[in-house]
């Protein structure tokens, strides 16, 4: 025989409990950023209190007193300063959408961002940079509620071969990198003029011919990380799901050959082949005398 009372009670609990839980959740204030944060880089520990003093000496002019990227100089910058409240970072060792490692932020501060107004702060002490990382983390509640992603694994770079470069070139076509970066890697692909970043600001794809420094570093491993993690906040996605690790290295090797004006083992090997030599010489543009560092 059915216990009517018991059924009614269960139904009531089933209806009321979620409502109560939702009500409780609705009453819960959103997580707040922590005023005290630490960073850990190697054996160093950074402290946000010390970082605050440094931030309000060096950083606030662009990144703003509240860290939201609205410093007094922000309106004059054509790539807006990082918004630390959003806690979205381009250069990471971690998968797309996740928080970076402390060491990622630390390296970014020391390296600076080429083609932006963010300089290298290598002149600061290592401890200073660690303290700044800790302070940056006080701007966003994400650092309270989330943990940094697990760093991606970078396999050992395979031996450089002409085949690797050629396969990288095929991937460049297959993955449609050229749509943004252009067939010659000059950042002038057909989609280039339509791209915007997470601030709705126009953003130009990287011009491989302009330098051998990409935004997130100058080594092959740095280049590898860029397209395997993506540059969060920009249209550059992560290709981790569509490119196998060994293929990623082929792409790195090919991209190096697009840097026509910078000596590299990849470029040297490429121009040692008749095919490569013809392509590079056809595309090579000598340095301009404007001093701009920008090649037409």
């Amino acid at each position, binding site marked *: 025989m059915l216990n009517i009372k018991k059924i009614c009670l269960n139904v009531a609990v089933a209806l009321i409990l979620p409502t109560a839980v939702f009500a409780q959740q609705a009453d819960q204030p959103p997580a707040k950023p922590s005023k005290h944060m630490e960073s850990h880089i190697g054996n160093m520990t950074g402290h946000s209190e*010390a970082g605050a*003093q440094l931030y*309000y*000496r*060096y950083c*606030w*002019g*662009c990144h703003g*007193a509240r860290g939201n990227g609205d410093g*007094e*100089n922000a309106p*004059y*910058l054509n790539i807006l300063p990082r918004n630390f409240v959003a806690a979205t970072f381009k250069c990471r060792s971690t998968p797309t959408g996740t928080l970076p490692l402390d060491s990622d932020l630390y390296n970014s501060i020391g390296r*600076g*961002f*080429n*083609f*932006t*107004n*963010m*300089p*290298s*702060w*290598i*002149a*600061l*002490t*290592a*401890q200073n940079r660690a303290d700044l990382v800790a302070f940056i983390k006080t701007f966003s509640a994400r650092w309270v509620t989330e943990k940094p992603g697990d760093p991606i694994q970078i396999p050992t770079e395979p031996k450089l071969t002409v085949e690797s470069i050629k396969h990288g070139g095929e991937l460049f076509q297959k993955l449609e990198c050229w749509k943004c970066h252009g067939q010659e890697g000059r950042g002038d692909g057909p989609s280039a003029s339509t791209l915007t970043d997470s601030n709705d600001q126009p953003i130009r794809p990287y011009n491989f011919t*302009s*330098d051998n420094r990409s935004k997130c570093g100058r080594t092959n491993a740095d280049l590898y990380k860029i397209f395997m993690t993506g540059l969060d906040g920009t249209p550059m996605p992560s290709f981790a799901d569509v490119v196998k690790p060994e293929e990623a290295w082929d792409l790195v090797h090919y991209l190096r050959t697009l840097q026509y004006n910078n000596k590299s083992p990849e470029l040297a090997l490429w121009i040692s082949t008749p095919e490569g030599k013809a392509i590079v010489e056809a595309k090579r543009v000598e340095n301009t005398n*404007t*001093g*701009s*560092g*920008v090649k037409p």
Partner: protein
Amino acid sequence: MDRSRSKDIRSSLARAGKVLLYSVVLVAILLIDTRPASALPAFARKYGMPCSSCHEAWPMLSPFGQRFKDNGYQMGNDRDAPIFQQAAYWPVTFRITPIWHRESTSQASVDTATVPGGGLAKITTQGFDLSGLDFHTGGTLANNFSFYVLPSSDNTASFHFESVWARLDNVFGTPWINIKLGKFELDNLLSEKRILTLTNVAGVYENYHFQPFSAPGVPENYTFGIGDNQLGLEWLGHSADDRTRVSAALLSASDGTVGLPTSRGYGGFFAASRAFEIGSLGLQRVGGFAYVGQEPTYYQYNLTTTTTTPIGVTATGGPVYGTTTTPYAGTGIGNKLIERYGLLGMWYIKKFDITTIYFHGHDNAWLGTDTAALPGAVLPAGAHAPSWNGALFESHYMFNPQIILINRFELDRMSQQAFSSNPSNLGNANVLTFGARYYPFISSRAGFAYHAEYAIIWQKGASPVFTPLATSSLLFGFDFDF
């Protein structure tokens, strides 16, 4: 107790309390107001950074600012060339300081009529005044081509070129090769051109300009200061992070005066330093410098000119004109050596820092005794090559980027006089300075500082009667640039 008296006392205490409260509040506002505080605004405007980025307290550089300067006023992020600026951008900054100051000299020559019984008196003057005016222009002409031009005036707007140079930066792509030509500041790690003190006494470093007396009241017959901008060619190399710096310069022996005013002599300046980190204390730096140069002991030709106004009358009532003799530019010969050496340490303990320098100077006996090294000439009896030692301690305490306290003590001690007959302490000097600067705002557009400072120098044998002389200076001012 009388009630009205008690009321008066309470009222007085209440007033005193209010004054104390307001003072505390004012000081608290000054200390707590950490609005981001500004530098050479031409650079700040170009890069959109607050002056506190490059300056501990402008004009004194921070390690980041020193690296920026050493890198040819370049950040290295491909935004350095002028082509990235608006076409209307012109990298110019002016700086001037309206002041009130009080200058005092313990023993100055005065008319005997004004001081009964003597020709010496303490002279003190005070009033509102102006500093000179500097027009700084500098930056990059293109990637790795930098320049600096500084027309500077005294406070009567009489201009000269304080600094003019062009520099090839990062030659062959390495920070270890940078070549500068023109008139520039020597690679002094403690920069006199970025000195935080402004008074007549402490606006320069005593040790950077110290020269012994050849005899009581008689200064040596040449002018040189390693704090002065010099004309020459400089090579500077530095590591990418600027922790290691080394430089060498070939300089004309003219103390930076244009037109080859003295001789065909040259000098060489060498400096090297290394910075290192000690935990959380900050960036420490140790280094040294040396200058070895030539100075003429006499001139081949002296111009004799007659004054245009009479200096007296003859017995018959006719005018008497005076004559002055000045060396003819470029004819100085009989060159002898001068030497300056120093060891430096810059020590940071979080908000407190202290710079220590040991100096040693040595002049050739011909120069020390003001003796012309004519062919066949011999030194006077008892002549020696004068030498001396000096020390400098400059400390700062930085509450925050807006408030800095400054203290400096310098001393010079003669170790060998030019003549045995000179008092052994002739020329010995002590200089004490302290002051404070407060920057009410810090932006990337302009700079402003409230400045207060007191400085005093004591020097043996420097008065008109060769007795010790004390000269002091008190200054308040609004130091600003735009």
